[in-house]
């Protein structure tokens, strides 16, 4: 299933440098949207580092996901500035609307809801990023409409 050729290309780009393992993992995640087990094995083999070390990095850093993610990635900023302006309520509203918890993916595979500690756009908080598009100054009342833009045309999953 997992195209290991793509993984090899990425490792190649860093000339098999052991110290580049973090960068390699980042590129693999960007290519596959998550870190497939097979890809992690491959990285360990090629760089000649134990799987435990690869797994230790993959689980230490927040940027990595070990499970496949949805088509649409909804990232809710939980930084301090967003927090005091109501980010927890926005997150709760998104969780309610999509019927998943933060870190989970909807059963139809359409949405993954993630939280991030800060995206550095604090003046626009509370901030939600959907597929890289920034939605600033989001109010709990705006959530339904914002998510609607990204829902499949059939309206499945919508209220």
């Amino acid at each position: 299933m997992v195209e290991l050729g793509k993984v090899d290309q990425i490792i190649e780009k860093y000339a098999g440098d052991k110290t580049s393992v973090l960068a390699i993992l980042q590129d693999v995640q960007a290519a596959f949207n998550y870190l497939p087990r097979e890809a992690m094995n491959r990285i360990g083999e090629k760089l000649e580092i134990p799987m435990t070390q690869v797994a230790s990095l993959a689980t230490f850093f927040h940027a990595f996901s070990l499970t496949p993610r949805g088509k649409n990635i909804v990232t809710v900023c939980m930084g301090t500035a967003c927090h005091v302006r109501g980010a927890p309520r926005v997150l709760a509203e998104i969780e309610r609307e999509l019927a998943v918890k933060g870190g989970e993916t909807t059963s139809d595979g359409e949405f993954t809801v993630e939280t991030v500690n800060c995206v550095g756009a604090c003046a626009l908080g509370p901030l939600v990023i959907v597929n890289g598009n920034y939605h600033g100054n989001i109010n709990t009342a705006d959530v339904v409409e914002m998510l609607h833009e990204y829902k499949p045309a059939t309206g499945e999953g919508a209220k």
Partner: protein
Amino acid sequence: MTKFTTPAQLTDHVAKAKAARDPNKVRVSVCAGTGCKASGADALIAAFQAEIEARGLDVEVLSTGCHGFCERGPLVVLHPSGVLYQKVKPRDVADILEKTVQKGELLPRLQYRDESRQIFEKEHDVPFYKHQERIVFAMNGHIDPRSIDDYFSMGGYEALGKVVGQMKPDQVVEEVIASGLRGRGGAGFPAGWKWRFTRQAEGDRKYLICNADEGDPGAFMDRSVLEGNPHLVLEGMIIGAYACGASEGFIYVRNEYPMAVRHIELAIAKATELGLLGQHILGTDFSFNVHVNRGGGAFVCGEETALIASIEGRRGSPRVRPPFPAQKGLWGKPTNINNVETWANVPTIINRGSAWFAGTGTGDVSKSPLGGSKGTKIFSLVGKVNNTGLVEVPMGITLRKIVFDIGGGIKDSKKGRTFKAVQTGGPSGGCIPDAYLDNPVDFDELAKLGSMMGSGGMIVMDDRTCMVEVARYFVDFLKEESCGKCTPCREGLRAMSGILNRMVRGQGRHEDLDLLEDLGRTMKTASLCQLGQTAANPVLSTLRYFRHEYVEHVDHARCPAGQCIDLIEYRINEQCTGCTICAKKCPTGAITGQNKERHVLDQGKCVRCGVCFDVCNFNGVSILSGPEIAGKAKE
């Protein structure tokens, strides 16, 4: 342009580029920082370019880095007049060019107004900018960060030419020490001292690191400096490498900052092409290369030994110091590590001299850089304040001036919101109440108040911010981010989190207050790294200044700020006009009522999301807490 082969060639080129910059050239400077991009700056820039071409005008469109006033983005400043337009949309472009640029007429609809509706015409008159003093941000807004020529035209790389051509490495170190520059990453250690340690350390190779792992939630100045003026940081690093004797440098930047990564990589490529980086810089024996490392999103990697471990390809766990990185750093070699903002101050110190730099700020640094705080500091002013964004202010300015003069005071003050506290120093900082608003802001003063400078986050909180909940938020954040290596930090945070989470649910005990203080003291004394040593600050500082809020939570299950959802109830009061907006917006259908009649909220269905409170324009929704709930029920 070909490679510079002597320092004199560079100096000469910069002088010519400066002279060639026409100050009267008509330029439209559009902020394309992350905030303004989120508000649609890209489409705006494209619209300007198309319209200027269609009209055949001799006007330059500058796509610049962050101007700072993110709240009002996208921002447009017209040069040379300095007219500021805010919240500009592509449909405004034709009007701006025709009326303002060509005829000199102003467009009131795009001008900035303060809360009293007073119009401010020019950027430098707007209170948000007026009280600032910009050293690091001086060029943002005037240059395209992707253009090294723009940087040259503002005097960029002049300092490098001077250093390599005329100064010995030790002289550079002494100049930085004399300036009093202290680390902008938070701890405030004298930058020049670190440089000297690295210079004097034994080692066949030495390294330099730029810490751009800006993990503090609520802070984004490093992002904006790297995005808006990457050559400034790079020039600072090259000068540092010359002074420390380093041959290789690393910029460790957060992966969440893709534009910063792109801009700095572009800057490195261009500087290398021109012989400002690489082998035999400016034809001398000095060689220096810079690499970019993307972080993996771990807060603890802002700690220098954890950051170094991460660059080496390991988990970001800190280690015991000493040895300090200046003795044994990256791959065991002497390593000097400074924050983005620290590096960005270096070229100006060289150009204008240490005495000029030390002329701004507090204290006396003639004997030791620890004698005061010099220069400026960038703060990200965010939270419940009217004007949010990045502000660069002289050290020693008061908190009041930042929050009220620059920040324009508390958001929604007309609806009765009042100032409660300002939180500085990131998650390990502290909350400072209004009694200390007139204290000067510098490294040592903030520490005395139980907070710290940190990387410069400044989060304003109003009377609707619950301090117990804020402490819980920071402790839960730090609990997740603790690397788990040392027991006081790992277990201390876990215990604190348990207590605070009980408190916000109304299940706290009075004796928990003493227990929290006890835990905090232990963590401060016994933790391995700065993360653990400062992790208790949010709890200790809120206990110090807002103990009454804790007491209300534990003794009366009451949240005075009306924020802790397990302790509150929303009620629709007699001010309800029956406008029906809350009933329409309520996600659970808990609100019912006829048009123009007072509505009713069914507590059984209410999930306390607060939509009704947010959307009501008539103060028709009250928040009750603790004994008030029982009291009101009896009515």
